[in-house]
């Protein structure tokens, strides 16, 4: 059992144990989450530890399934995931449905680690599905406990991922037919020669499966209901960590397998990303409560990240990935604010808010901070990602990137409008008199998130420098720079 396997399986083993408990389990879940965080950091900072593939579960024709690799991108995203879990748990600490949330989040964490470390595309797919199921469980058992939302979430993911599977099998069969080697390892599948048209269709299938998770524009409709239905603390994990799975699959599996098709798809991807960015922004502007607002803001950002990824251009891709990570932090902040407000009995409907700053200035300040980060203020986490994505995509498809740039403007419009609605103006009469400001613990959490956001904004190079090497990991020049240049 090497460290990577422990890393993946520990949360999965912890989850059933948690399930059998009738009460409590808070400290246990948190302890597991923190251990995972430490492990994630260890794996990220000392990447040699995974190189032992002797534990691979080798199965003829499917390849070595349980092979783990130490990709820098996967490791980085794993750190993000591992970081968001304790934060999510901390925000959920006082919820009655804490155990359900922790259970689902732990399973999701294991699945995410698995798919970040997996070398085998089939394994990735399996983890991806488990992730979706656990996510649906999270939506089902926390917050509004909405079955419809959970089902919608699951269906979108499952339909998409099965398309991914069909496309993947297409590549697999083609490769087998060409070389006689039937194997699902991405390193092997990346060598397949694929006819252009078929490749494009396959890529479309894969994009459908992966983009649905991000969620990219025409496949986004689950997002608002899911984030709106789950407990905000759960949405932190759902929107911050789980969405990275789709993008990761895109970068690590879909594009290296079908580089030519990816290049062909780039203009469409950029256009969709641009439309989605603005679409999410406008929907956020018209959102009917705070949860939906945060959801659509997240959708808008992820579409921008998608725009960067699809551009297949050095700056844009790194920007997209960076935005993915930054979005995790910012989204955690946004949903954290919502969680804090809901913990005080505020539902997030506009009618029940207004002038809150007077009662809770600390909360208001943090809310503004994350709103500013969300609108891409330079110096905060989102900015390098957004700017690089756009600057890169601009070199590929100027008009679409220009369109997406309007998202910068839209961001300020919707964020500030909502901030004004919630925090500024005269105190809303319906607000309870004894409305506590942030407690010490919450305040500390926000500081952690806030400092990370600030650090990511001011010194993105620490992260970006490492992302620089990740794309050439597969030896795929198409992604590193042969695509749309540097």
């Amino acid at each position, binding site marked *: 059992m090497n460290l990577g396997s422990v890393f993946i399986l520990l949360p999965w083993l912890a989850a059933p144990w948690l399930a059998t408990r009738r009460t409590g389990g808070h400290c246990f879940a948190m302890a597991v989450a923190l251990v995972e965080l430490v492990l994630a950091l260890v794996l990220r900072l000392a990447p040699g530890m995974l190189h032992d593939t002797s534990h691979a579960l080798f199965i003829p024709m499917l390849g070595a399934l349980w092979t783990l690799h130490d990709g820098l991108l996967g490791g980085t995203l794993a750190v993000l995931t591992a970081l968001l879990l304790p934060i999510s748990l901390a925000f959920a600490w006082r919820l009655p449905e804490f155990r359900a949330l922790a259970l689902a989040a732990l399973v999701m964490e294991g699945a995410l680690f698995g798919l970040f470390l997996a070398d085998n595309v089939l394994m990735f797919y399996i983890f991806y599905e488990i992730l979706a199921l656990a996510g649906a469980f999270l939506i089902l058992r926390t917050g509004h406990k909405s079955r419809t939302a959970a089902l919608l979430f699951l269906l979108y993911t499952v339909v998409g991922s099965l398309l991914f599977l069909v496309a993947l099998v297409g590549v697999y069969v083609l490769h087998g037919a060409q070389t006689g080697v039937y194997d699902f390892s991405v390193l092997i599948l990346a060598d397949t020669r694929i006819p252009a048209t078929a490749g494009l269709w396959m890529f479309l299938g894969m994009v459908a499966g992966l983009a649905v998770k991000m969620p990219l524009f025409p496949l986004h409709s689950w997002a608002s209901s899911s984030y709106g239905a789950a407990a905000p603390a759960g949405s932190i994990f759902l929107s911050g960590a789980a969405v990275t799975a789709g993008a990761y699959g895109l970068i690590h599996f879909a594009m290296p397998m079908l580089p030519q098709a990816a290049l062909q798809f780039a203009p469409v991807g950029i256009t969709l990303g641009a439309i989605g960015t603005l679409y999410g922004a406008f929907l956020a502007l018209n959102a009917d409560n705070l949860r939906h607002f945060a959801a659509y803001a997240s959708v808008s950002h992820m579409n921008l990240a998608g725009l960067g990824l699809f551009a297949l251009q050095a700056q844009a891709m*790194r920007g997209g990935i960076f935005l993915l990570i930054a979005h995790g932090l910012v989204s955690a902040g946004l949903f954290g604010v919502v969680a804090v407000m809901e913990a005080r009995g505020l539902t997030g409907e506009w009618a029940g808010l207004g002038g809150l*700053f007077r009662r809770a200035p600390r909360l208001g300040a943090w809310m503004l901070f994350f709103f500013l980060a969300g609108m891409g*203020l330079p110096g905060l986490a989102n900015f390098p990602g957004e*700017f690089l994505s756009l*600057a890169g995509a601009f070199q590929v498809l100027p008009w679409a990137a220009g369109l997406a740039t309007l998202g910068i403007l839209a961001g300020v*419009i919707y964020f*500030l409008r909502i901030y004004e609605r919630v925090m500024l103006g*005269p105190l809303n009469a319906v607000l309870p008199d004894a409305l506590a400001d942030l407690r010490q613990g919450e305040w500390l959490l926000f500081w952690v998130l806030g400092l990370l956001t600030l650090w990511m904004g001011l010194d993105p190079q620490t992260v*970006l420098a490492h992302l620089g090497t990740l794309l050439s990991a597969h030896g795929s020049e198409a992604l590193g720079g042969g695509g749309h240049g540097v």
Partner: protein
Amino acid sequence: MSEWLWLIPGFPLLGALLNALFGGRCSPRGMGRMAATMPFLSTLVVLALWSTHGRDPHLHDRVWTWIAVGRFHADIAFQVDQVTLIMISIAAFVGFLIHLFSQQFMAGDYGERRYYFYLNLFVGGMLVLTMADNLLLLYLGWEAVGLCSYALVAHWYRKPENAWAGRKAFVVTRIGDTALALAIFMLFAEYHTLNDQQLFVAVATHPDVLVLTIAGALTLIGAIAKSAQFPLHIWLPDSMAGPSTVSALIHAATMVTAGVYLCIRLYPVFAAVPGMLWVIGLSGAFTAFYAASCAIAQVDIKRVLAYSTISQLGYMFLGVGIGAPSLGLFHLLVHACFKALLFMSAGVVISVYNEDHDIRHMGGLKAQQPFLRWVFLAGIFALAAVPVVSASFYSKDAIIATAFMVPGGKLLWALALLGAVLTAAYAFRLYFLIFEGPVTPGEPYRMGWGMKIPLALLAAASIGMGWLQFPPGWSGPDLWLPWLAPVLGMPPMPSGAVNVFLQITGSVATLLGIGIGIKAAQWERRGHGFSRLAFLSGAWFFDAAFLRVFPPAVYAFARFLDRGVERTGFRWAFLGGLRDGFGVGSQLLGIGENGLLSRYASGMVLGLLILLVFAWGWM
């Protein structure tokens, strides 16, 4: 070369950070002291800079690599040259003065700590903006000051209109930011660099006119929005909702000049496109005239000053547009001094009149506040560009005069001159309504030294700053233009008879304006002043039209996307359609499942039939 340049923006930023970290533990008073110290320290560093490198500043300080992906490379790096030195001097020193002034002015306010946080952050952001050695870092400062402007305009957030004004300011300036971002993308896509100096070299060697035109236009939009030029000036009058100190610092002395500064910095880019400069000049001249015409009809003291700021910024743009960026910068410096002075004084006036902004309700304040009256008058002199004894005479009139000289500049000159008349008019109308005439007693208000010193210093500067650079043909100091010439070149200067003509027309225009202003004040008292002219007091109805069109359109579009596309299209039609389609299909198929044995058998026979038909077709 000099590893301590970062200290200049570093001190105020540190102040903001300390404020955020420990603000809860300290008294607001202590916070204010700390906050004021920071720009003071920056000022000291700037002074040190002057003393060491003042003659020919060429400093660069790379702190760390910010973003570097491929050729996209942006450092956190600062550079100082002549232009920058002027700008940071203004930002740090005026910033410090305003911090000082605020100690008394803002005491006891309900958001004092927050106020100092943003004020510090603002000074820091402004310093970063001016010192940035690349466009991206400039953009950082650009956005940071925009944020502070928002937060400080909305400082008294409990009134919804204040919050709204702050938002409007941010949103409108963000239009420009977006354009600026696009311009950066374009320039990067074309020249693959973000660094100013490399960019200028690249532009000079490979001028791609189309790209430069579009990028220049976008940059100009950015500058216009930030500097509140027509047609994106609409946020500035509303942003007077903030404290007067904020107006003084952000909306007069520093932030709004960022647009001008940007144009000066990117002057080579604009200059590379024929005609672009003239457009800048036209924009400036028109705005100068337009805003002056609006200012003359305002009754809110701060709105007068706001329009006046817009108008004065127009002159600076005009300066850049006519190829005299150094004159524009000169006026920027002068304007920073007298407008900050005027705004702070206005703040006191408003406090005296118990938060009443209407100048028609004021009058005869000179007896009650003599000190205030004199410093205010100094500011008014400078604003109106009273010949010889005001700084503006040396900066603004020089711009107007130079405009006459450039090709296609007669129109600009005429507009600017008309604006100058109006400027003098509204300046003296304002002064006379407040300080002269029948006495309307206000609250007793005693200014402490913390307030008086900044006002006195600024008043002195408003009068004397012009003596740095005498007009051509005058014997006297000729310091400014030669000093700046290495970076900005020498502007075309009038000489001879034309020069005399231009100086005389300028002076006459001012005097004419003063006359009109005094009359206007009298008319106003009698109730039929310019403020009755709705067209002028409504700023040509431009703002109203803008508000009538754009926000509703945006909200309507958002509603349409939400209700029309998302709910109707995606949810109702697509998801609902799928659900109902499956439901109906299921129901139809369910008819076959009605428990009737014969029907089940029919299904089987039907299947057999289909297979047989199949066989028949096969044979």
